[in-house]
């Protein structure tokens, strides 16, 4: 085990800002992509079924 | 000219142009695409005298002498040594026993007068374990020849 305590883990040897800034950015990017994937799918399905109703 | 002949002429023309492009690239690479010369190459007179080029190697331990902004140190590939003078601010990562690339000219006295000194610590990821300097020097030479071939 590398870390003596959780605070040591978050501190990352004094480089917490850079490490967690990186991982945080990845998290934001992934979440944003997942949300956009989901909303795009919903919109596509909605317009698909709308089309069918108007036909 | 038939359509076929026309097309053939165009293809041949295109090939000719591409060949000329390749020839020009080769000319360029023959010119001065040497990233750096090693001390061994320099002592064997492979490096041009009086022209600007780059010298690469390790800063010899204990060789750095500072007098104000004037710095002198020796660069080695463990086989040969080239003395270097430089006046200016050295980068933070410049350390004895670490890699360095200096750009400048070689004088008749065999002293390399650097106009620019660049350093970077290596990018190995490992728990403390030092690759030997010899290994590094060979790698540096390989790298230089590789880049020449590119």
């Amino acid at each position, binding site marked *: 085990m590398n870390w003596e305590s959780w605070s040591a883990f978050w501190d990352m040897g004094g480089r917490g800002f850079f490490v967690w800034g990186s991982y945080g950015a990845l998290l934001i990017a992934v979440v944003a992509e997942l949300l956009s994937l989901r909303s795009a799918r919903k919109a596509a399905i909605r317009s698909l079924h709308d089309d069918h109703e108007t036909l | *000219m038939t359509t076929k002949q*026309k*097309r053939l002429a*165009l293809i041949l023309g*295109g090939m000719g*142009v*591409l060949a*000329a*492009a*390749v020839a*020009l*690239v080769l*000319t*360029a*690479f023959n*010119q*001065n*695409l040497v990233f750096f010369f090693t001390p061994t190459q320099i002592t064997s007179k492979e490096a041009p005298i009086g*022209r*600007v080029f780059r010298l690469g190697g390790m800063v010899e331990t204990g060789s750095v002498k500072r007098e104000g902004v004037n710095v002198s140190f020796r660069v080695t590939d463990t086989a040969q040594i080239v003395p270097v003078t430089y006046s200016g601010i050295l980068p933070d990562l410049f350390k004895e026993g670490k890699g360095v690339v200096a750009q400048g000219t070689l004088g008749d006295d065999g002293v390399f007068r650097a106009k620019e000194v660049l350093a970077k610590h290596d990018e190995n990821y490992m728990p403390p374990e030092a690759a030997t300097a010899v290994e590094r020097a060979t790698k540096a030479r390989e790298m230089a020849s590789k880049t020449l071939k590119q």
Partner: protein
Amino acid sequence: MSLRAATGAVFRREMQLFARRKSDWANPIVFFLIVCSLFPFAVGSESEKLKLIGIGVIFVGALLASMLSLPRLFEEDARDGSLELMLASSEPLAVLILARITALSLGLGAALTVATPVFALFYALPFDVAGMLALSVALAVPTLLLIGAIAAALLVSARGGAILTAVLVLPLTIPTLIFGAGAALRVLNGQSPVAELALQGAFLLLALALCPLAAAAALKISTD
């Protein structure tokens, strides 16, 4: 020899247009002038500083100025219908496009090349550097137009042409930019610029061989 007749006609027409409409070459030059004269206001008038940025500013200015003339490569013809004459021709479209770009390069390239050493004076650049810069620009403008022609051809029938042209073209011009400005920088440092010039020449030839084909394919796609 109707290929010769056709390419000749395309070339001649471009030259006629160039002679007929002064704004076609005057506008890029004026734009070039404005870009070059704005920078000293922003960075100060210290001549050492100006020398260092001058080469880059002038080169980027020339790049942007030649991008300004991209829309007239196909867009105008598409609007008045004369693009169809070129598309319907039985001669290879790539060769016709090449003729067109050659004419535009000669016209615009000459104008920008002449302007370059004059603007170099703004930046206190020595004569040999100014001359090398002019040579660089002369080599770069055709390359930029050839690359730009692909984007111009793609965007003939698309929305948001101007910005999109820049987005598509500018990243692809980076090698030309590096070595074009690099050649002049070499001269400024008292070194030989042969390698940079050779590479610039190589890019030009490469673009000469490939870009007309890509532009022809692009034009067919966007007008189909």
